[in-house]
């Protein structure tokens, strides 16, 4: 493969695949928050849905195979927000370290 030519792995129509997995789940609060951040921040003009898709595509097929849907979304939202100057990566890294120290569960890690 040419190193500079991205594989359009996300362009799946017609590709080989097995039977359709039918298990469904209800969305967790953190997933709904990711969804809400996407809608709100794109409506406010910080990025576009197209920018979200581009970031998801550029994250590559391994991300698709190993991360859940909303894990991929928060990663792609973050790329777009950094590019839009909403915050910078140093601020994010510092805040993530602080959040991770707050507790062992998602509930414990909320600011109080």
């Amino acid at each position: 493969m040419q190193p500079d030519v991205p594989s359009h792995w996300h362009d799946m129509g017609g590709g080989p695949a097995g039977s359709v997995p039918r298990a469904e789940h209800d969305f967790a609060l953190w997933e709904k928050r990711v969804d809400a951040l996407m809608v709100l921040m794109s409506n406010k003009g910080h990025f576009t849905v197209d920018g979200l898709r581009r970031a998801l595509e550029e994250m590559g097929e391994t991300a698709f195979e190993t991360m859940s849907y909303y894990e991929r979304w928060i990663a792609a939202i973050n790329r777009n927000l950094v590019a839009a100057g909403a915050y910078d990566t140093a601020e994010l890294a510092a805040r993530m370290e602080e959040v991770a120290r707050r507790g062992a569960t998602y509930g414990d890690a909320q600011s109080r």
Partner: protein
Amino acid sequence: MPHDHAEHLSPSGHPYRPDDDGPLSYWQVMEIAVRELLVEKGHVTPEEIAAQIEAMDARSPAQGAALVARAWCDPAFRDRLMADASAASREMGFDIGALHLVAVANDAVTHNVVTCTLCSCYPRNLLGLPPDWYKSRAYRSRVVREPRAVLAEFGLDLPPSVRVRVHDSTADMRYVVIPDRPAGTDGMSEEALAALVTRDSMIGTGLPRTPA
């Protein structure tokens, strides 16, 4: 509290997914941090986030089912729906935002089914968030090449007399299937008819229920 109620199902009939009591993941940490930074910098408020979650939770296949049942009962509404499904949805009072909706109708010789091969486009502002399988590689890859085999996996065996029309949501439109009204439903109320319309029948991977 650990999850020890695996047998319990949510109101929609699915297992509860671990929420705020599982081990904190890297991506959950990122979500919290991103959200806090956005709030502190004045880009968004916690109230806006809560309101957006509430608005999304309020969207569900029930909205689409009401739309379909109205179309079954009111030929003039059906004409308006087929001409401009966004306007017809707003006429029903649904907050669909900027959704550009196209209705595609089944009949005795036509069966429609919707997908998005490039990502996961779905009429979310009418039907709520898509099911996991809609976003899967298997569905996205196969339904454009072998729709009948995929539909058979969903329990829908279409006769050769029915032509399948697949709709790939590649750009700005979103699609809702208007299933054919089941036989034996003459005289049923619009509300009773709506109860027959399943989410999958509006994606095209199912048919409406038949009256008991």
